[in-house]
């Protein structure tokens, strides 16, 4: 349900820089409470590691797009690349209102990002481990 949260133009620009320009490995977005707008929080360089990405997911909710590359177990192995949308919504220490504002704003952001293949919702660190994203991409 789209509750009409604003999405800054920057969000789409940087998404395209990732998707088409291959400039980043990931883009992280946050909800600017004062402006009631989703803005870019952090961009990861193309050679960033998954661990670096996860280090940005702390006690506040975030949205992210990650350009994930995986190899299948086939012989010979196939290369799969997918743009994964990650909704990070930790249960601990976050006021319900903030969690809900993020949950409500998700659709508005997703609508603006064309070309997302998969989505993960993670509420605790184990749900956003690299094994989880790899499993999602390969299925």
């Amino acid at each position, binding site marked *: *349900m789209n*509750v*009409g*949260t*604003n999405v800054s133009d920057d969000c789409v620009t940087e998404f395209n820089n990732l998707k088409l320009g291959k400039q980043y490995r990931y883009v992280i977005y946050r909800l600017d409470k004062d402006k*009631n707008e989703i803005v870019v929080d952090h961009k990861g360089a193309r050679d960033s590691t998954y661990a670096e990405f996860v280090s940005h997911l702390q006690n506040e909710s975030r949205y992210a797009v990650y350009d994930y590359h995986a190899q299948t177990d086939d012989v010979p192995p196939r290369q799969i690349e997918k743009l994964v949308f990650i909704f990070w*919504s930790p*249960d601990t220490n*976050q006021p*319900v*209102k903030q*969690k*809900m*504002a993020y*949950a*409500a*704003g*998700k*659709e*508005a952001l997703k609508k603006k990002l064309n070309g997302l293949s998969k989505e993960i*919702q993670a509420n605790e660190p184990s749900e956003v481990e690299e094994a989880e994203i790899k499993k999602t991409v390969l299925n």
Partner: protein
Amino acid sequence: MNSDEIISVVADIGNLYTRAGFTGDDFPRWSTFTKCTETMQFGDESLGYGNGQVLDILQPFNPDLYENLLKKMFEKLGVQSKDYSLLLANNFQTKHDLQKVVEILFESVEIPNFFTIRNAALSTFSAGRSTALILDIGAYSTTASAVHDGYTLLKTQIQAPIGGEILNEPFRQYVVGEYNQFKKTCLARDIKQGLLTYEQIDTTQQYELPDGKFIQMQQAQLSEIADKLFNSNDNFKGIQHMLLDIINNSVNDIKQQLCSTVISTGGSSNIPGFLNKLQTTLSALAPPMCKIKLVMYPSNQNRYHSVFIGGSILASLSSFQSLWVAKNEYQESGKFSIIERKCPN
């Protein structure tokens, strides 16, 4: 809450309880029974005394009594209905009933703005999620729904005529004294809330009656009563099967998410040991690859008011303010069609 935020009224009018209050509050300021006396008195003080009839406002839906309840609500909240937008939880059985209520609200109660959304979606939001498998154990019926990105998926929604009230019956026998039916049920409900448990108890449970006498019940007796929610009979499959049916009927993409976001709401979810029993029962029956995970509310109290809290938060979001249906929009657009367009379901 900053001073720029506009306050609205949020109401969850259920078959047994009505809860109403303001956006931003985490507790409904007015909580009453969705029933009244023949002389239009509300509240358990009026309902529990005398031998006059206690009238149901819902089940079946009575528009005149409903209108009185709405007006009473604004009076009890201490505000003028003309000045406050209203978010009403949608638990209506038919579009026709909802249509009638919207008409009453705009034309008779005269609210300026309106919005409605399914109970299940509000219970989901109040757990900080937008996707979940909701088990709502109400008073007279239980509803299981899949909510995806805030939309309640009505095609897979299942309702059964078993709810918390049916668990009162075995406790009625302990209610002695001259009371009317309504009061007797309230007392039986109290005893149930004091004694009923799924947990293994070492000693027999005790409950002290108003006259000082104690009631004792054995584990076996209590289990038999509590298990009514899980056992199947002629018109009921058991709550676990209601949830499994939805899981099995849902598209693969959301199956996993539903399984890992199961939320039980409604007062009966607070019966000691209920959540554990639900978790184990569901996990044993769930399809492979689907790990069942129950999502908890911050406090047990939330289970009585999850619909209200969800509404309170939703209608306080600044991004939500553009979604209200205004009175003039309603009147100019041919009335109900605008509700269908602007309120997802």
